[in-house]
């Protein structure tokens, strides 16, 4: 973790030096400066790098969290739609009951044809042509379905 420090405090050039090395003091320019400059640069670079990594990490985690929220929302929607489908399927099954369809057809004025006849592609009629009329017995309403009345 020491790499996080731009300047190693132990090795700081400002640390007390041995007295014998202080004696000449001929060329003061040589002393600390050449050692400090590159380290500050390196430190800045590292800080910037760490900053970049942290920023990227933050952006990524915000992105992931956002995706997770979206995923959750979609999953919730999926569950909701599945339930909706169950409800609609149940309604459809009830409405598709033959007695219900027959009652609707009868309400539209349709009557069952008891005398089947077929038309061939050549236009010939097989069976007896007849007009569909009221049958001998009522054609709807005698087979109960509690689901339709509830």
């Amino acid at each position, binding site marked *: 973790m020491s790499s996080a420090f731009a300047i190693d405090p132990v090795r700081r050039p400002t640390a007390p030096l041995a007295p014998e090395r202080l004696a000449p003091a001929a060329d003061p320019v040589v002393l600390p400066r050449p050692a400090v400059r590159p380290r500050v640069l390196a430190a800045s670079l590292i800080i910037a790098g760490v900053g970049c990594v942290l920023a990227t990490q933050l952006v990524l985690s915000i992105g992931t969290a956002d995706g997770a929220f979206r995923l959750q929302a979609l999953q919730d929607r999926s569950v909701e739609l599945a339930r909706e489908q169950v409800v609609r399927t149940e309604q459809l*099954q009830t409405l598709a009951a033959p007695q219900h369809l027959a009652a609707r057809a009868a309400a539209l004025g349709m009557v069952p044809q008891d005398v089947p006849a077929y038309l061939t592609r050549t236009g010939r009629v097989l069976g007896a042509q007849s007009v569909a009329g009221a049958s001998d017995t009522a054609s709807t309403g005698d087979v109960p379905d509690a689901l339709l009345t509830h």
Partner: protein
Amino acid sequence: MRRTRRAARLRPLLVLLLVVVSAGAFLTKLVDVQVVHASALRAESKDRRSQQVDVAGTRGDILDARGVRLATTVPRYTVTASPRLAAAGGSVAAAAKRIAGALGAQPATVLHELHTDPTSDYALIAKSVTLTTLTRVKGLDIPWLYFQETGKRVYPSGAVAGNLVGFVGADGRPQAGLEYSDQSCLAGTDGVTEYESALDGTAIPGTAVAVKAAKPGGTLKLTIDRDLQWYAQQVLAARAKQTGAKWGSVVVEEVATGKLLAVADWPSVDPNDVNATASTDTAALGSRAFTAPFEPGSTMKSVTAASLLDAGLAKPGTGVVAPYRLVAGGADVNDSEYHGDERLTMTGVLVQSSNTGMSLLGSRMADAMRYRYLQRFGFGTRTAVGFGAEASGDLGAGAPNWDPQSRLATMFGQGLTATPVQMASAYATIANGGVKVPVRLVDSCTAADGTVTTPAAPAATRVISAAAARSTVSMLENVATKGWLAADVKIPGYRVGIKTGTAQESDGSGSYSKGFLVSMAGVAPADHPKYVVYVDLDAPSKMNTSQATAPVFRQVMARVLQQHDVVPSGSKSPDLPTEW
């Protein structure tokens, strides 16, 4: 100075000792918890933190021949509450009002449930709640309400095939019909799920683990065609009401396969509302077509005639002199209406439905032989369907023990009993060139893993020769064209063969009641028989003859032909002599 140095040397040792001792203490406790008392502690913690709930294995659907659902299970929800937490939260009355509003219930009822035991963590608020209602209740966002999914059995077509499908009780247990008899196919296997719960008992999300997975039940597919079944029921019910009949049935069988395409009963039961039928007619909760045998009457004459033809003892043109009344060998039989001696052929005997004529013809065959024919046609034994409480019918004392009266009476369908399904099967045998194909109601059971099983059925057997069967159908055609109901049963373009029956009914104490059981059995198209329709109506007070059944027969048969795209052949029925 020395003491200080020594103390300085000892200090790390002391620290080390302290660390070792405390580590040892922790290790001991760890071993104690993890190894020595592990299982006891685990059990204790489990009791405290985890809950086990049974997960119901969904019951399988019952489908018709085309895959339309006749019985299915839909999700419903149980709403419960914790009165203790509700009381702690305050404003219970206001919450009860909101809950009742969402449920469509009375606020007082909800409040009563919440007030019954305010210290309890359980109060049942509503059962069998639909998803739409549940969404409304959930929208209230009340933390002390809990919801549990349950299944409810529904029958989307109501009373259509209700007598066959049967029903389940409020507890979900099967009570009648195929729901009961095919329980092994339909029942799901319950599973167990374990979850960890918080202090107040609510499940901690994400902790649910299936200890044992629930297994859904199998799908039962029938041979019944729902739309035809509805039509048969509708036509039968309308006619039964019109003629004042007590009950009746219609059976439609496919000749080549033995499949029952429709078995209509009246009165019928709506499995969604069993009480409506149970309160008026308990016998109607099952299927009388299977469970209620009766003396079939003259429809049985075709069976006697077919047996005579097969044994070579008579031909369609074989003549007899049929009196109105025949007293012979201790037996006394007569025809329904007075007439002088008639010179009838066997065809004529069927067309006129002469009891005396059939008695004379049937006497040509030894009783034991006729008894065997009846048995081979399937009378006296349950059909291959094995419907719940299915009756076998009764051939009386049988040969050689029939008394003289029963000996003759059984030739024209009295003194023995049969179910409508047995009658349809006998006609299907004649229509199928003499080969009896076992009757089928259940097509298959498809288990949850996709394994398909078909119910075991006996092999098809030849009962009479193809020639005898063909001749019998020709005679039935003559009944349809020359009999007194010719106009009522005519389906233009098609050749139809029928036989009527007006049977005296046993009053249950050894004699006959005043009512008649009227019936009609027929095949079409007679030039190549594909379908058999059998109709019976019990005691139609406003029309006490087989004419009561004629429109039901004609309408159902026409619909069968139409629905299966049977093209009218346009050929003419044979004209067999009825007199000589």
